[in-house]
């Protein structure tokens, strides 16, 4: 088959959208299904945007083996738009087709569940509301439904879970999201001021402030033709790994809490505090807000902070290793983690799972390695892989990734100590290249964060798309709880710790 797509050179290299061949939908469909037979490819973005009387579509497939992204395109008249759905042959397209359907009213024929994703304020059909989500129902006198949320029994974000159960056993879980919608994509295109865009991107998902801010900054640096020094790129990776370490330790605490292992919970809570307080020491904010800015940084690393990072990681790393060794050898804990909430490798591949959810069932998917960015271009990361896909695998993955991230940060700080150069002040007055598109990928602690943007004739950001890893991975949670006791749901949920606001945008 002939090639009908553009190939990006590497992560965040700008593309001229005019050079992406626009295909007949039939050709596009065949090409995508052919390409997707390769397990090393997955869809990272599929969206459309109005252009005159038409809707233009871009489909971005990450090719992990060749470290690039394939961009395919097709176009459609905006009048009663309908297309044959890709989802029955490539299930991972389900969420993207649903997004397009919800936002622009494109009817994907044959889509098995063409349902709302987040009820955005600018959706095509304003007559739909949060209250009338079309849940699956099964008529049976032996089954019952359990509704949970949107307001949950903890200090967490809102979302609605609807279980169909046979006794204690979950037959099906459907997840309705959108409660956290704030219109952030539109906000980023509307804001002309680069500082405002940076602050908005830090709030896409506050637990991944560094990850999302970095994905955004990569876009504007690429479109604005700004090169940054190795020192700054290393500092950004240090911040990203600190975020990963902190959240993984916090999640280990939450997992212990759910199985009533209190010592594990409190020790990990306190250890997380030491990490985020170190981030605060560096940039004045426990979540790293303010740290990542285009072209430079307001908070360059200093010797004393670098030393403090090394000291904290050495000490907390030792204590975390001690407690995790205990957690994962206690029979009472293992009995609750093992073989619970299994997602198979095949399922994960088919739904396009990314990040931790993919790596915990044997899939090598880590953008630090497969689509390197910032200092990971120079620094080789060996991703941690677990194979069983159960709660235990996701827990163990965290413990091992913390260890690995501590090693990475230690190496990077030592590199920094030997060779650091002056870090510039941030640049907010940016002139972006007109009519260019850029795709930015960052491996946040949950997984692959993808931001896509293109600029208009005058260099303004005309279109901005955000994909948090949760967008793909919520389906993994729904699959994980099938045939489990409903009482195992909280544990399964925590083992993924997906983002509501990252999905709802």
């Amino acid at each position, binding site marked *: 088959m002939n090639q009908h797509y553009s190939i990006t050179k590497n992560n965040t290299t700008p593309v001229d959208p005019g050079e992406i061949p626009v295909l007949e939908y039939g050709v596009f469909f065949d090409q995508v299904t052919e390409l997707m037979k390769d397990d090393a490819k997955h869809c990272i973005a599929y969206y459309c945007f109005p252009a005159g009387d038409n809707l233009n579509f871009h489909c971005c497939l990450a090719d992990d083996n060749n470290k690039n992204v394939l961009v395919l395109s097709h176009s459609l008249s905006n009048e009663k738009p309908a297309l044959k759905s890709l989802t029955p042959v490539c299930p991972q397209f389900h969420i993207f087709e649903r997004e397009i359907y919800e936002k622009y009213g494109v009817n994907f024929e044959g889509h098995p569940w063409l349902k709302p994703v987040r009820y955005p304020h600018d959706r095509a059909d304003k007559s739909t509301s949060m209250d009338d989500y079309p849940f699956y129902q099964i008529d049976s006198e032996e089954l019952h439904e359990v509704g949970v949320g949107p307001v949950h029994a903890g200090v967490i974000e809102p979302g609605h879970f609807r279980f169909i159960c046979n006794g204690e056993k979950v037959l099906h879980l459907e997840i309705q999201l959108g409660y956290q919608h704030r219109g952030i994509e*539109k906000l980023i295109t509307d804001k002309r001021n680069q500082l*405002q865009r940076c602050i908005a991107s830090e709030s896409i998902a*506050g*637990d991944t402030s560094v990850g999302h801010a970095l994905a955004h900054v990569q876009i504007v640096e690429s479109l604005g033709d700004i090169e940054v020094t190795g020192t700054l790129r290393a500092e950004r990776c240090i911040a990203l790994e600190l975020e990963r370490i902190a959240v993984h330790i916090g999640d280990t605490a939450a997992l212990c809490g759910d199985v009533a292992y209190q010592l594990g919970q409190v020790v990990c809570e306190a250890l997380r505090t030491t990490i985020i307080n170190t981030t605060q020491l560096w940039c004045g904010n426990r979540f790293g807000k303010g740290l990542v800015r285009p072209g430079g940084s307001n908070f360059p690393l200093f010797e004393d902070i670098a030393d403090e990072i090394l000291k904290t990681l050495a000490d907390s790393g030792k204590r975390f290793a001690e407690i995790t060794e205990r957690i994962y050898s206690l029979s009472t804990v293992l009995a609750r983690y093992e073989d619970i909430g299994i997602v198979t490798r095949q399922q994960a591949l088919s739904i396009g799972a990314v990040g931790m959810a993919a790596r915990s069932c044997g899939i090598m998917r880590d953008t630090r390695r497969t689509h390197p960015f910032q200092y990971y271009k120079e620094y080789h990361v060996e991703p941690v892989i677990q194979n069983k896909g159960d709660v235990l695998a996701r827990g163990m993955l965290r413990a091992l990734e913390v260890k690995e991230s501590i090693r990475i940060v230690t190496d990077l700080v030592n590199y920094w100590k030997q060779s650091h150069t002056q870090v510039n002040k941030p640049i907010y007055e940016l002139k972006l290249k007109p009519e260019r598109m850029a795709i930015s990928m960052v491996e946040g602690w949950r997984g692959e964060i993808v931001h896509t943007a293109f600029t208009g004739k005058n260099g303004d950001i005309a279109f901005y798309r955000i994909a948090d890893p949760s967008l793909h991975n919520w389906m993994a949670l729904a699959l994980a709880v099938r045939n489990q006791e409903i009482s195992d749901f909280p544990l399964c949920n925590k083992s993924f710790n997906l983002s509501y606001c990252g999905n709802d945008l």
Partner: protein
Amino acid sequence: MLKEVNILRSHGSQYVKNLRIQPVSGIFRGRPVISGDIAGDEIKLVSNLCPVKAISSGTGAIDLGRCVFCGECAFALPGKIRFKNDYRIAVNRREDLVINPGLDIPLRLNDGEIRKEIKKLFRGALKLRQVSAGGDNSCEMELAATGNVNFDFGRYGVEFTASPRHSDGIVITGPGGENMAEALQITWNATPVPKIIILAGTDAISGGIFEGSSALNRHFIDNHHIDLYVPGNPLHPLTFINGVMDLIGIYSK
């Protein structure tokens, strides 16, 4: 068992003994101080720079209810604006969040305007239900942290409940999304009287960076009496803790 004892030993004591005076990192951005001699053109500079229009272009005052604590104004005018690491910035009157140039005085609650029943009923125990209305999960995590092993706000009987039926009030985070408007109202209706409302984080107080987004619906927030404003992006656990201690009248430590 022996292993657990060893873990406890290397873990040591982690709890914050005095929640009033616990030191935080020197560069933590808390209460700002604006120099009294800030010039007109300097005010103009930072007021244009501010991403959330928190700085008055006339007086140069900073409104902490809008401020996202990015610190850019302090970087632009290092001699004139600085953020101290004073985390006690929660207040019970919205106007008290406006910090005028030339003033370096602690922010405290106005005792006279705290509703009488609050101290009377909630001093011994205050149970709160948190509602995230478009929050980004950072304020939520900091609120959860108030109950962790470090801060242990539970020592004063202040805790988050699973159900609004068991709570004495709600803590709202996030700018108030349209999609959460109904759930927020239902949660409030389910909370027994007397009850309080706390706005946690800058997003909740003013909308923050989301102000003006068509996806918001701040009707509930705009039309209810707010008992406590806790600024921050996200709020620091100690800001929330000290604000609530002042509100319900815990004066020891």
